[in-house]
C-alpha cells in the first residue's frame, strides 16, 4: 500500500509475443493482494504502453516479455517516459530471458526482474517495497 490507497499497476505485453497466460496469473495475484491492476492486452507498442502508463499514472509499469526483445524494448520505454516527464515511474520486467540480459536491463533502470520461477508472494512483496521506498508523489 502507498499511504494513500491501493498500488496502481499497469501490466503490459509488447510486440509480437502472443502468450498471456503468465501475465494474467500475475494480474490475478496482484488483484488478490489488493492492487489496482490495468492490463494492456496483447501486441502493444512501447508508445502505447508508455502513454497508457502516464495517463493511468501507475506506480509501477510491469512489462512481460517472452519474445527476447528486452534489449530494444526497454531503452525505448525509458526514453518515452523521459519525454513525458514521468521519470519517477517504477519499471519492472517479467517473463523469460537470459541472465546477461537481466543485468543489462537493470543497468538501464529496470528496478526488478521477476522471471518465470518467481513465487507470487515475492512479486507482491517486491512491488510493495519498491513503492514504499519511492514515497509520496
Amino acid at each position, binding site marked *: 500500500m502507498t499511504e494513500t490507497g491501493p498500488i496502481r499497476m499497469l501490466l503490459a505485453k509488447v510486440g509480437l509475443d502472443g502468450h498471456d497466460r503468465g501475465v494474467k496469473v500475475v*494480474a490475478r495475484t496482484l*488483484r488478490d493482494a489488493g492492487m489496482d491492476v490495468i492490463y*494492456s492486452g496483447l501486441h502493444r507498442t512501447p508508445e502505447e504502453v508508455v*502513454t497508457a502508463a502516464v495517463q*493511468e499514472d501507475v506506480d509501477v509499469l510491469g512489462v512481460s516479455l517472452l519474445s527476447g526483445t528486452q534489449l530494444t524494448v526497454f531503452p525505448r520505454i525509458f526514453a518515452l517516459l523521459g519525454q513525458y516527464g*514521468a521519470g519517477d515511474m517504477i519499471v519492472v520486467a517479467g517473463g523469460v530471458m537470459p541472465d546477461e540480459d537481466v543485468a543489462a536491463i537493470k543497468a538501464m533502470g529496470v528496478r526488478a526482474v521477476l522471471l518465470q520461477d518467481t513465487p507470487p508472494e515475492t512479486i507482491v512483496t517486491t512491488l510493495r517495497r519498491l513503492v514504499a521506498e519511492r514515497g509520496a508523489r
Partner: protein
Amino acid sequence: MSYIPSDILAERAARGELQAVGRLISRAEAGVPEVRTTLAAIYRRTGAAHVIGITGVAGSGKSTLVAGLALRLRQVGDKVGIVAIDPSSPYSGGSILGDRIRMSELAADPGIFIRSMATRGALGGMARATLEAVDILDLAGFDAIIIETVGVGQDEVEIARASHTTIVVSAPGLGDGIQAIKAGTLEIADIHVVSKCDRSDANRTLMDLKQMLMLGHAAAASTDWQVPVIGVSAYSGEGIDALVTAITRHRAVAFRSAAGQTRRLAIADFRLRKTAENLLAERFAAVAAEGAPPLARRLADRDAGPYTLARELVANLLAWESKHE
C-alpha cells in the same frame, strides 16, 4: 524525485501536459488533503466540456461503444477524455481494470485521454473521485468527456445526475417487453443504444425499447427531447454516425434550452449532496471506529435496542463536529 505541489500540476494540466493530468487524478483519487484546495480552484474554471455518461449491464458492450464513439468524435475535432470504471474486489480491495483493452485503437492519439478507475466500494456505478477526474480533464481542454460506469444492474442511476447526456446500452437477448417497462436504469436514458445489432435478435430489443418509450409519450407532457433508440454494431460500424448525430443534437439541448438549465442545476445539486455525504461518511467512519465497539457490546448484551444505541453513535458524531468546527 521531489513532491510537486498540486497548484503547479494544475497549471501544467491546463496547458495540456498529460503527465500532470494523470498525477492530479491520482491525488484526487487518494483524497490527499493538499489537493483539495487545488480541486476547488479547478472546479471554478470548468463547465465547458460536454459530459456524456454511458451505462449498461456488464458485457453489454459499453467499452467497445466508447471506443467507436471516441474515434468518431475525434474525427469531428473534439478532444475526448474517458473515465472508465470497473469494480473493486469486496475481499481484497484490488481490481482488474480491463476497459482499456477494448479501446486499443485509441492508444496512440494524444487527443484522447483514457483513465481507468476502481469503485473502491462506492455504489451507484461511479467511483468517489470520478467527477473530480472529469473536472481535471475539463481543465485540460477535453471537449467531450465520457464516463463509462461499472457494469450496472437495474438500479444504479447516479450517472444521470452527473452527465449532460446519458446513454443506456442494452444488449440483445437479455429481456423482453416486461423488462423494458420496469423502473430503474432504463428510465434515465437520453439516448438508448442497442449494441451488437449485427445479431438477429437485436430487432426484438430495439422494438421492446421503442414500445416502452411510446407508452411513456402517451403519459408524459411534451418535452424538448424525444429519446431515440439507436442500433449500433461495433463489428460493422453501423449506427455510430446516427449516435454521434443524436449526441450532438442533445448537446445543444443540454447547453442551450431551459430544460438543459434545469438539468445543470440538478447536476450541481447532486454534486453538492454527494460531496457532503462523502464528508459525513468519512467523519462517521472516524467517529465510529472509536465509538461503535462499546455500543455494539451493549447491543450484544441486550442492554438497549439498536435504534437507541444508533442515536447515541450519531450524537457522538454531532459532538465531534461541534468540537472541530
